């Protein structure tokens, strides 16, 4: 039984279910070795070892977060220096207009604030979220992915995508019920 086109809509890709995280990891390394690039595994929780099996490269988010933190720290110090020592110097109990110790708490908090907001929003932006619709959401079975099901979906736009051959690969890798997903 091969996956069959059912409707007029264009094909988005193929979806295969796997019985557990281990089977999914094995299948992922098969798909990776076959040279596919536009595909993804779907799991209810992060599965360790799957990144290697899929060949996912480490994300650049840590670098962004580092630079955001450095910006927050430097910006915090500069802001306090400019506001309290240059633009509006005001004498408080004979203290110096600018001294690092008194300015550390605010600079520290701004470091953490900018770095944390960057970590959060970079995760969303790099992941393309929020994305309120996706062709996979139309599939009834796919909804169990956030409970206890494991899937691999291969995008039809992948240069290596071929309905027959991709279907065979997914089945051969242990995928059950390979389905057409419409655009």
């Amino acid at each position, binding site marked *: 039984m091969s996956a069959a086109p059912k409707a007029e809509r264009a094909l988005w890709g193929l979806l295969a279910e796997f019985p*557990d*995280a*281990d089977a999914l990891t*094995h299948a*992922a390394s098969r798909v990776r070795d076959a040279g596919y690039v536009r595909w*993804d*595994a*779907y*799991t*209810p*929780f*992060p*599965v360790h070892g*799957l*990144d290697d099996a*899929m060949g*996912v490269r*480490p*994300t650049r*988010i*840590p670098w962004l*977060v580092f630079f955001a933190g450095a910006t927050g720290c430097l910006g915090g110090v500069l*802001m*306090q220096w400019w*506001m*309290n020592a240059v633009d*509006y110097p*005001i004498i*408080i109990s004979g*203290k110096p207009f600018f001294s690092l110790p*008194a300015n550390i*708490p*605010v600079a*520290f*908090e*701004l470091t*953490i*604030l900018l*770095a*944390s907001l960057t*970590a*959060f929003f*970079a*995760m*969303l932006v*790099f*992941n393309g*979220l*929020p*994305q*309120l619709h*996706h062709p*996979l*959401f139309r599939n009834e079975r796919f*909804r*169990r*992915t*956030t*409970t*206890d099901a494991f899937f691999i979906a291969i995008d039809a736009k992948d240069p290596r995508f071929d309905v027959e051959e991709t279907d065979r690969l997914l089945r051969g890798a242990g995928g059950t019920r390979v389905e057409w997903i419409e655009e």
Partner: protein
Amino acid sequence: MGVAALDPRAGRDNTSQDPTARQPLVLGGLDDAGVTERVCAIVEAPKPPKAWYVAFAIAASFTGILGLVVLYLITTGVGVWGLNKPVSWGFDITNFVFWVGIGHAGTLISAILYLFRQRWRTGINRFAEAMTIFAVICALLFPGIHVGRIWFEYWIAPLPNQMDMWPNFRSPLLWDFFAVGTYFTVSLCFWYMGLIPDLATIRDRAKTKVRQIAYGIAALGWRGSNRHWHRYERSYLLLAGLATPLVLSVHSVVSFDFATSMLPGWHATIFPPYFVAGAIFGGFAMVLLLSVPCRAWFGLKDLITPRHLENMCKILLATGMMVGYAYAIEFFISWYSGNPVEGFVFVNRAFGPYAWAYWTMVMCNVAAPQVFWSRRARSNPWIIFGVAAAVNVGMWFERFVIIVTTLSRDYLPSSWGSYTPTWVEVLTLMGSFGLFFTLFLVFLRFLPMVAMAEVKAVMPRPHREAHR
């Protein structure tokens, strides 16, 4: 296959201290679907338990009272409080420091235990984080209203204004604004980020259109993609790493409000670590106070297991003794410094007009947690609940003692005074509890109170090693 089938020890008790066997974190033989079912059932039930309605009615009425007394304060002026010279801080700052402290356990459980790979945190981190958010909301209320002229609040923000004036960054009160504001923002990001996969679970199980749309928007289109999980986990780790120094800094900065002053009893270098230990102590007490009834009412005893309670009791015991040590060292240093005024302040704390508050604090914070040396006490929910309640009372009195005894007795007897709260202050305190519990009860009803995706990630799996 469930855990029970794999592990014959997986019963209802996972408190064994046998070091050769790792105890299960989830009981009752629950599998992935079972965890989802158990947690989502609370949110999806057509009606919450009766106890929820009763608790909500009480909490919401107190929130209403809070609104009224705050309105009365703003329209009349801070004279409606019992504050005066020399005691110009009373219930307001006591409540602020108390609530910020309560907020600490959530981030501690989420961030520090995450970095330390303490997997048991997954059962309790979600509602501890929620508790943090709500406690910080309650805390932010007090510095907000205690200035009296709340419409000038924006002066503390570094905004260009019509007076061509900037805030004074050498003031610890301004550091507070940055510290607590950052803490709230980061905790909110951390909490929401953890919620995204679980909101997606509820969206995918939704039976009605309204739920599907509401949870669908909140879940931001999460679909469990591994490429997404990869960035998600890295960001989550970074947030945990950033929140860890943050949580330790927040109460340190709050303690600077006191420690940078010249008043005897406040001018102490032990304040930052002492305040942080006290905050963790009080925060864990609140987590226990909430988790004991919640796990019973909502049938979560398999996810928030006896071991979770036992671990938290041990933390309570440890931090309680740190706080006790701080009380003792304050006395020692005041004697050792040879400063007679400093020495007097501490003797006055224990034997002066506010001795009743001091000894309430000692009994609740130092004596009460000692019962947790006994394993039977650590496994009895009633005792745990009682001690947790006592610690919350004790931690509130700790802040009251620090603030009021010092302000009422400083260097010169001519500037001594006393302080009695008015009914407005008492109702504001009760109202802040109302606000906290109202928000918490709404959270319990509409959001998953256990981090399902995280619990699943730490559950034992069959044949994990066989396919290397």
